[in-house]
């Protein structure tokens, strides 16, 4: 019987190995399969002693080859490991890493979203006789060893909202947060609060969350991972992956597959390798702080050693974060280092000053990331001088707006008050006077009728009345052809002549109001005051940080075609005299995808706007999402840029977002979607994933207008829809009515 059990165990181990190595040809795997087969066939005929002896040999062979296979693991094998039902899951961690826990808001499938698990847990630490129970908020995706209702850890928007809710609770309770990332990606539906918009909210809130956050990554699938991943310390399990997109997804894009076609395994394997998704890759790129080694071929629930290791890691990480920001930093961290491994008790609650330092440290941590992933070809001297000029301008802005500005404002306010009171007094007396004089006056009032004003030509110098004359005319308006409107079948729109449609009508169907896409130049020239655009950070250039095959060529092509070095143009411009900082994402440059260069430019523009106290506009002429060929260098822009937005709005800035054409995925799910003032140009589409991806990941059929701006407005994702011809007016209106207190023009 014992033999039976042990054979079964070997069978399971083989099955697991087969699952991991899947379709790959592997001599070692084949050998194990053959040997086990042989033994099973032979065993009934063997005497017991011999059977046991041979079994022991076989077990040794398994052990040996598993070690060998471990060294041969490809990135794709690791992807299969983390997706395997036997992979440890959050419930296992709660059971084995924490000393006690209560699940919040979930009992198996009775949960608002069973794929997102929240627990209040504590860790018990003994110092001498004293026992400390240190409370932690544990948040993470739960895959539940393949339980159907867990949806593979693919969290719905409301699941992420639940996570955010309890992060805020942790903040109130002043306890650290441990997040565990076990997700292939978010469930890409738009139902309120919306996949992208909710992730953006999570990022924005985490950017300012005043408690330590430790994130542990097992399966870090893009946006879904970021939803709970913006942490002070990011740990990664050695067999995990952290990627911008699933290797299958990348292969589908690389292979230009459409409509549910499957990429072949070679291409998938190749993409997995190129995307640099393993713990070592991410450690090398600086996107995780350290990695925890797992047992051979990945951690499974029976690997108790691993849980102990994990426990130690999360405790020491939390300690370190706290020590780094609390006043006793130096002394305590020395102590901690000296007694490496020793469990020195550190209190995890933070005082007010420590909280401020925590946020600053978190900001700087992400600010420093991805510096290698873009090009800045300027001489070091120029960079240095930029630094000094920045210093100067921030000093200037301090004096101009903070010191002087505040005094000036006070004086003006006082003067206004006095003036208003005077008005009341004077108004009363003049009224009285008028009443008296009118009563006293006899005969006809002398009436000086302004006859000339009513019958002769008045002065009219209204520049705003453009009546169809635009500064910039689209090249589309130069073709003698009719253009059919996509809504013809619904609204009966007639074909319109291109010069009318793209000229005077600014690409707006005169029958149904459908907005045809226009070049970004149209916006540059027709929205901002003529000649007021001053471009910034032009030296920052997109590159190919992962040496992704064939991407250099594509990138050069994009640069040549657009004349831009990356997909984001940052500039200062005036609009009716008010200077605004603008980051424009251009659909023409690699689909408007966001990588390290785009993110860096965006952050620098944000920082500059904060210093100069300028309102900030993100004009999204189109973005397909994060640039997959940059891998995590791209994904990391989500937290990075969102942190910059947070810092800017907290400083009292006005952050407006205007979506045009198509805006999807990562950027919407972070630094765009976190703005409280998001608008869309009519006929724009806004969402998390396109219909093809939704169909593939959820099996749901998506109605044709699913991502339409009006739908987004109905769902509460955006705050308004603008007609293209009125963007300028609407921006002026927004500048006057929205935004924080520190904009200089107020």
């Amino acid at each position, binding site marked *: 019987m014992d033999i039976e059990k042990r054979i079964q165990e070997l069978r399971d181990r083989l099955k697991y190995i087969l699952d991991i190595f899947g379709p790959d040809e592997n001599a070692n795997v084949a050998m194990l399969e053959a040997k086990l087969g042989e033994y099973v066939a032979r065993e009934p005929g063997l005497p017991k002693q011999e059977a046991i002896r041979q079994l022991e040999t076989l077990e040794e062979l398994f052990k040996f080859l598993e070690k060998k296979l471990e060294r041969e693991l490809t990135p794709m094998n690791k992807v299969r490991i983390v997706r395997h039902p036997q992979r440890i899951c959050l419930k296992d961690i709660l059971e084995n890493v924490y000393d006690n826990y209560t699940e919040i808001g979930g009992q198996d499938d009775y949960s608002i979203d069973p794929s997102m698990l929240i627990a209040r847990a504590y860790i018990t630490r003994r110092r001498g006789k004293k026992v400390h129970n240190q409370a932690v908020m544990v948040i993470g995706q739960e895959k539940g060893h393949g339980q159907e209702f867990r949806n593979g850890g693919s969290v719905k928007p409301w699941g992420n909202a639940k996570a955010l809710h309890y992060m805020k609770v942790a903040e109130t309770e002043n306890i650290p947060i441990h997040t565990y990332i076990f997700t292939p990606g978010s469930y890409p539906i738009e139902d309120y609060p919306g996949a992208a918009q909710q992730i953006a909210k999570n990022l924005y809130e985490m950017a300012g969350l005043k408690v330590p956050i430790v994130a542990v990554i097992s399966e870090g699938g893009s946006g879904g991972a970021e939803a709970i991943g913006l942490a002070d310390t990011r740990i990664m399990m050695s067999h995990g992956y952290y990627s911008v997109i699933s290797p299958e997804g990348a292969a589908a894009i690389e292979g230009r597959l459409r409509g549910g076609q499957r990429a072949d395994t070679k291409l998938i394997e190749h993409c997995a390798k190129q995307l640099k998704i393993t713990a070592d890759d991410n450690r090398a790129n600086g996107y995780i702080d350290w990695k925890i080694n797992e047992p051979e071929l990945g951690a499974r629930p029976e690997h108790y050693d691993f849980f102990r290791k994990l426990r130690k890691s999360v405790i020491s990480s939390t300690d370190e974060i706290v020590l780094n920001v609390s006043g006793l930093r130096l002394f305590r961290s020395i102590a901690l280092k000296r007694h490496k491994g020793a469990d020195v008790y550190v209190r995890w609650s933070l005082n007010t000053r420590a909280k401020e330092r925590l946020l600053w440290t978190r900001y700087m941590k992400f600010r420093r990331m991805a510096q290698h992933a873009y090009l800045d070809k300027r001489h070091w001297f120029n960079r240095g001088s930029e630094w000094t000029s920045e210093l100067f301008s921030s000093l200037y802005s301090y004096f101009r707006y903070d010191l002087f500005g505040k005094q000036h404002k006070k004086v003006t306010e006082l003067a206004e008050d006095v003036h208003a009171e005077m008005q009341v007094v004077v108004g009363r007396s003049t009224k009285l006077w008028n009443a008296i004089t009118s009563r006293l006056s006899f005969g006809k009032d002398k*009436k000086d*009728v302004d006859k000339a004003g009513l*019958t002769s030509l008045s002065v009219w110098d209204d520049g705003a009345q453009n009546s169809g004359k635009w500064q910039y005319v689209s090249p589309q308006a130069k073709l003698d052809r009719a253009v059919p409107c996509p809504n013809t079948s619904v609204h009966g729109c*007639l074909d319109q002549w291109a*010069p009318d449609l793209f000229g005077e009508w600014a690409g707006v169907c005169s029958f149904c109001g459908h907005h045809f896409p226009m070049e970004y130049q149209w916006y540059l020239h027709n929205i901002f005051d003529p000649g007021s655009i001053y471009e910034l950070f032009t030296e920052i250039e997109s590159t190919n940080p992962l040496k992704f095959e064939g991407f250099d060529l594509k990138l050069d092509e994009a640069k040549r075609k657009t004349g831009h070095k990356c997909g984001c143009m940052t500039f200062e411009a005036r609009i009716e005299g008010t200077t605004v900082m603008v980051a424009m994402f251009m659909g023409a440059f690699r689909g408007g995808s966001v990588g390290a260069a785009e993110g860096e430019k965006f952050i620098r523009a944000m920082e500059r706007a904060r210093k100069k106290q300028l309102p900030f506009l993100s004009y999204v002429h189109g973005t397909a999402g994060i640039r997959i060929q940059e891998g995590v260098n791209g994904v990391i822009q989500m937290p990075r840029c969102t942190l910059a937005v947070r810092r800017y709005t907290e400083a009292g800035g006005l952050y407006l977002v205007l979506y045009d054409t198509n805006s999807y995925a990562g950027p919407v799910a972070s630094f765009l979607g976190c703005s409280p003032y998001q608008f869309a140009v009519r006929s724009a589409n806004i969402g998390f994933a396109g219909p093809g991806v939704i169909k593939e990941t959820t099996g749901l059929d998506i109605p044709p207008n699913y991502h339409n701006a009006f739908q987004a407005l109905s769902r509460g994702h955006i705050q308004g829809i603008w007609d293209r011809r009125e963007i300028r007016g609407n921006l002026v209106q927004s500048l006057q009515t929205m935004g924080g207190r520190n904009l200089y023009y107020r």
Partner: protein
Amino acid sequence: MKNSSEPKHHKILIANRGEIAIRIMQACRKLGHAFVALFTEPDRHSEHCVLARKLGGEDSLYRVSSYLDANEIFAVADQAGATAIHPGYGFFAEDYRFARRVVQRERKLIFIGPSWQVIRELGDKINTKRLARKLGVPTVPGSDKPVTDDLEAEHIAKSLFDFQKEQGINNPVILVKASAGGGGMGIEEVADLDKFRSTLRRIKNYAKRQFRDEGVLIEQRIFDFNHLEVQVVSDRTGQNPVHFGTRNCSVQSLGHQKRIEVAPGFDPSSLRYAFDARKVLEDITEYSLRMAREAGYDNVGTWEWIVSPTGQPFLMEVNTRIQVENGVSARIATIKGKGDVDLIAEQIRVGLGAPLGYSQKDIALNGVGIEYRIIAEDPDNKFAPWVGRITSFGWPEQEWLKLHSQVPTDREYEIPTDFDPNLALAIIWGKDLAEAKARGVEFLNALKLEGVNASGEALKSNIDFLRRKTETILAF
């Protein structure tokens, strides 16, 4: 300004239907040009199709999906090898974009009408009003630009009330209208200055919602006016406009649709007016030509005027097209002593680039013309259109009578419901007003127009209304 010293044969695409299409075909024949006519499925039995087949053969007629789809017109024009397009009235006649496309597309055509710049300039009411004021031409008192500022608006409103009182108007009324509006939408009257503010707010909100432009115009409301027109013709030089006299179009339906037009605009020789009617007529023709010269007007057009009971003329708007009632002006005119003037033929001639060839002194006007618009409608029930089948239609021919109609006289005819409801235009001439009126009544009495609708009810028409109104023609 095309040079056409040698006459060239053109093929003119007629982008219209019904009566005007017929008259353009006839004018083309008269001038020796070929034509291409269009029709839509519901119009297939219309008289203009019958005539097109008769005059130009089967190849001169194309079926299109809609008269309003410019692409259809250009596709047919290219296919048929047309060299020019005549828009008639309505449809594309005053659409400067259409006119621009005609001359700017790769295969260029001639637009028989004013140049697109002129259409654009004079098609904009505010622009027109400002041009008039620039030239000292009287316009309705009030603003001549969109007013957005409330204080300014109130100032204008108050001035307008004072202005009217000063002129002895006891119950002054002003109009507040959305400057981007038109066709009677977004207009309100204010008779009480205290209510101006709320009206202004209402109109501004409406305009902002409807036209995304909260500018308003504030004007004096003029009551009991007469509606006069000046017919202008000029060639492509735009520098030598002449007029063909005035018309009075004051007999209208409830919806301000013209029903009787009379040329000339007043008849001081037989009627007494409270003002110097002769001078008013002279003034408005002079003003109209002054504006035409300034604008470089280069085809036929109509300057529309309102004349107050005290004889003050105000320019309303300019119609940059041939009008339905052009025939009544032509009827009383002679050029260099020659009668039978055809303004549509003139329009085509100068439109294709020929010089005008005469000046104002060559044009003489004599007698009185009356044009009746015969329509199946019920004047007693808010001029409700009558829809059904015409079973019999006929009239005795007279040498003083000219009748234009797309309704056949030899068979039954279903009135199409999709278009404007004119059945026929009858133009009567008399040597003086009395004779014209007598002949008008004679014609109306003899006119036979019968029909039946689906419920078996007899046709309703405005013939009685026209007869009744003939009594008081030109009296003011």
